[in-house]
Structures are given as C-alpha cells and as structure tokens.
C-alpha cells in the first residue's frame, strides 16, 4: 500500500490562493483608531509595500516568485503521508492523511512565510528584519530565512522564554540571528519597562513593541518588522500546504475529501491547509473543515451566543462590555472566546460565514492522541499539533461508528522534539481534566439572560 506521496520540484504550486477573493461576504478593511480604514501608508514603517499589497489584495491567485520557489525547494514540496498504522490502531474504515510540515529546517510550517517575507523585504531593499518570539519557533524560522537571503535578523525573545528555552536561542544564533531578551535596554519601550520592573519576565506585547520600535527607529530606512501569524499575507503564503496536498491526494487516487483538520492558534497552519479546500467548499463541495482549539472555559463553548461585540470582522471600534463585575466572570471573556480574538481575521471571518466548524478539545485528550500517534506513526508532534490529531481521532471513530470510509486530512504543523515537558507531565499523570459543575454552569448561563442575540 502506498503510504506517502512526494511531489517533484517542478510539480510545486506556482501560485498562492487568496481566500479573501472568494468569501461570500467581503472582509472589511481594518479601521484605525480614527475610525477610518487603515491606509497602506500607515503600515509602511513596518512592512515593505509589496507585502502590504498582498495584505489587502483581492486577487484570487498570486504568483509565487521564482526566487521564493528556489528557497522553498530546500524542504518543499513536503510529503503527504497516509497514517495507515493509526487507522489500524483505531480500527477505522476512514483513510487518514497528514501533511508533514515538520520536515522544514526549523521543524514547523513557519518557514513557509518566513522565507517569502524575507524575500519580499530584500526585493524592497531592506537589509534587516526585526521580530518578536515566545518559545522561539517563529524567531528561529525567521532567522533561518534571513540566513538564506543574507539579511540581518534581530529577534526580541520574551525574557521568561529566553531563560527557559536556551536551545531555541542557540538555533537562532546558529542561523545568524541576534536573539535579545525582552524587555531589553535597546529600545525606549524596553528601557521604560525595565525601569519600572527590573525583574519582569516580559510578555509578547512588550516584545512586539520593541521589535516594531527597532524597525521604526532605524533612520536608514533599511529595517522592517516581520510577523509570523494572523495577517492575511501570512495566511496566503501558507496556502502552499493545502495546494500541494490537493495534488498529492489526486496522485493517491482520492477524489473526495470529507474532513480537513488543523490546529488553530493564530490560524496560519490551519489556514495553510484549509483555505484551498474552503475554495472547493464555496464552490459546492461537501467538506467539513475543522479548526481545533484548546478547550475553553465551559461557559464559552456551552453558553448561547449572547452578545454582539461589533461587526463580524471586529472592524468597528471595540465597545465597552456590559455585565462587568456582576456575580460571575465579566462578559468580555465570553465575547472574546466566541469571537476568536487573536485568531487571523480571515479564519475568524470564514468561521462566521459557516465555512468552518471549530472544535475545542481538552489537553488530556490531545496528549492521549499524540501518544497514540507517536506509537503508531512514530512522529512526536508539537503540543499545538496534538489538537489536530485528537480531532482526527474523534472523526475517525465517528467514521467507524457510521461504517463509512471517510477521507480525513490534517496538518502536522510541527514536531515536538523541543517541547517534551508536556509529554513528560502526561505520562507522570500530572495532567487532569476537571469539569465545571452543573450548578456553576447554570449560574454562568444566567449571566446571559436579557442580553441581545448577536447577528451575522
């Protein structure tokens, strides 16, 4: 039985797919603090104009420059595997496929956009990129990309991550990146924080401020900032994942995909696999597309959709939330969770359009699935990726119960070889699920009584 499919370099997709062009309701432009649509000029201090054009593009297909393809060939096209051993362990009639993005030099999908962004910046005349990173996945991906293109790379790494993940710092430095603990004394933003709190462990918010300031304050104009998730051009660059997968499935003789699954934090690895399939769905295909998130507070997932925060894409100015301080947890957390704050606007919008059906799964189930996957398919996946595997296992079991030979594909977004603590804790029995009591839940539901029902 064929268990994996490779594409040759000359079979790699030569265009990215832009879902924004096909959304039934267009994604509104983001509104700035003055209430007017954000103009490209406002973003010019941090992004080159060629990337800003992609950010706002409504073109369905965007050519991948030959120079970027030459960089991607180092690890792309990535293999598509059929998880026959997992199928066997589950006793499912489903055919399970996974796109293996862990084969990139940095071990995840992130270099797909890192090399594209670095290339466009270099084309624009930029010599140096700045960014922020937590554990270092994005920082190492961008350091690698900059090394390929001869750009300088400065990464502001959250202090607590800098101290706890020294090997990621080493990865960045090995590729020539400069990794600095944030807050740092290199920026005004960092110095102000250090003055107030010398022992602060930092935060992503501070690190972003430092990275942006480092770009904006370079008077030579040769420095820009790079972001690895959430934005439209990042989603665009990642669609090469799904476009390759579609070609590979075709080679495997698969004519119809039933379920597409990806873990969704910022949304880029999910979007990468899912958006090309969403295109099929928009044009009539019957596909269940599932972004998977960590389980939320039960009040979020079980409570009715009881408050309209603003317009669908969150483009209106944020409104003060009601119910603050009443006898349970304030409303913003409910609205926040239900509106997928922090997730890419394109993904959030597609969910609201009904193109995607989000699922949330608790951590123990995720680690159970990841352990099963490691024992059957061999790969130890990143903690985020375990969510996609857990959803796949659920869907494969459903197929078994229904006796249907469904085709399921998920994105294996990264390996977990530098994130083994969670596995260790799981095996030690230190991860536990707890349930909210019915009484607590009913109390929570009461907090929605009388609130307006949101509209879409």
């Amino acid at each position, binding site marked *: 039985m064929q268990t994996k499919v490779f594409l040759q370099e000359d079979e790699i997709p030569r265009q990215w797919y832009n879902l924004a062009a096909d959304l039934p309701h267009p994604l509104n432009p*983001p*509104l*700035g*603090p003055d209430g007017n649509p954000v103009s490209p000029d*406002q*973003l010019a*201090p*941090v992004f080159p104009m060629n990337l800003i054009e992609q950010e706002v593009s409504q073109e369905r297909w965007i050519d991948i420059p030959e120079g970027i393809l030459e960089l991607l060939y180092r690890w792309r096209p990535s293999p598509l595997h059929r998880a026959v051993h997992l199928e066997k362990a589950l006793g499912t009639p489903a055919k399970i496929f996974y796109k293996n993005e862990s084969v990139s030099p940095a071990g995840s999908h992130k270099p797909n956009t890192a090399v594209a962004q670095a290339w466009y910046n270099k084309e624009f005349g930029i010599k140096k990129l700045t960014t922020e990173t*937590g*554990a*270092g996945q994005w920082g190492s991906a961008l350091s690698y990309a900059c090394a390929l293109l001869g750009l300088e790379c400065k990464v502001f790494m*959250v202090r*607590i991550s800098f101290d*706890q*993940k020294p090997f990621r710092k080493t990865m960045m430095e090995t590729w020539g990146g400069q990794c600095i603990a944030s807050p740092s004394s290199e920026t*005004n*933003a960092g110095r102000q924080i250090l003055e107030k709190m010398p022992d602060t*462990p930092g*935060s*992503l*918010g501070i690190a*972003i*401020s430092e990275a*942006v*300031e480092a770009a*904006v*304050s370079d008077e030579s104009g040769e420095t820009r900032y790079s*972001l690895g998730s959430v*934005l439209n051009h990042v989603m665009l660059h990642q669609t090469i994942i799904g476009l390759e997968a579609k070609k590979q499935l075709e080679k495997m003789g698969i004519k119809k995909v039933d379920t597409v699954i990806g873990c969704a*934090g910022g949304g880029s690895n999910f979007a990468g696999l899912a958006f090309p399939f969403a295109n099929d769905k928009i044009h009539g295909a019957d596909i269940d597309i599932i972004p998977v998130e*960590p389980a*939320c*507070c039960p009040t979020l997932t079980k409570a009715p959709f009881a408050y309209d*925060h603003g317009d669908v*894409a*969150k483009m209106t100015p944020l409104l003060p*939330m009601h119910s*603050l*301080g009443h006898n*349970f*947890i*304030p409303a*913003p*957390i409910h*609205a*926040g969770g239900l*509106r997928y*704050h*922090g997730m890419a*606007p394109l993904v959030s919008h597609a969910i609201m359009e009904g193109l995607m059906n989000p699922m949330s799964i*608790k*951590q123990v189930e995720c680690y159970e699935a990841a352990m099963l996957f490691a024992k059957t398919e061999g790969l130890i996946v990143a*903690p985020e990726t375990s969510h996609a595997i857990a959803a796949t296992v659920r869907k494969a079991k459903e197929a078994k119960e229904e006796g249907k030979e469904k085709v399921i594909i998920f994105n294996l977004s990264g390996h977990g070889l530098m*994130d083994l*603590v969670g596995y260790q*804790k799981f095996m030690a029995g230190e991860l*536990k*699920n*707890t349930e*909210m009591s019915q009484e607590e839940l009913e109390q929570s539901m009461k907090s929605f009584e009388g609130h307006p029902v949101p509209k879409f």
Partner: protein
Amino acid sequence: MDRFDSERIYCRKLGHELNFKYCRQEQDFLPCSKILNCWFERLAIKEYILQHFNEAEREKMLIPPQDKIVSLIDIIERAKLNSKNKNE
C-alpha cells in the same frame, strides 16, 4: 494571591511551560487575558480572579485584544513617539 504560583502549564501564547505566577501578572501586573481558559481545567480560577481583582481590574484584563493591524498601528505610533523623544 500566590497560592497557585508554583503550578505549571503550557502557555499557548509563548509556546512553552511556565508557572501560574507569570499568568497572574502577564499584563503589567494584571492577569493574562487567557487565564480563565488556560486554567479552568485545573484550578478554581474564576473564584480566584473574583477574589483578588476588583471590577475595574477585571474589566481591564479581559478586554478583547484589538484587531492585529489596528494594534500594530498603535504600536507604530508609540514607537515613532519613543524614537522622537530619544532624538530630542
């Protein structure tokens, strides 16, 4: 206030393990906006928040984040200001 400080969890923002102490002061000494969702499976986190943070603090910590582009523009403006102050 510090009774859960040594509890550890995988942080979905940063991508690694850290302790509760970080979560309860991530936003300039206020808890991270994701603290409820991250900890509800393990701690009586709602009760903890209600006990230790007043209405105004809860409002501030739980305000949903801005759209990324909008927040970037805010940061750019602040960075320009910082840069200008540095040069003066």
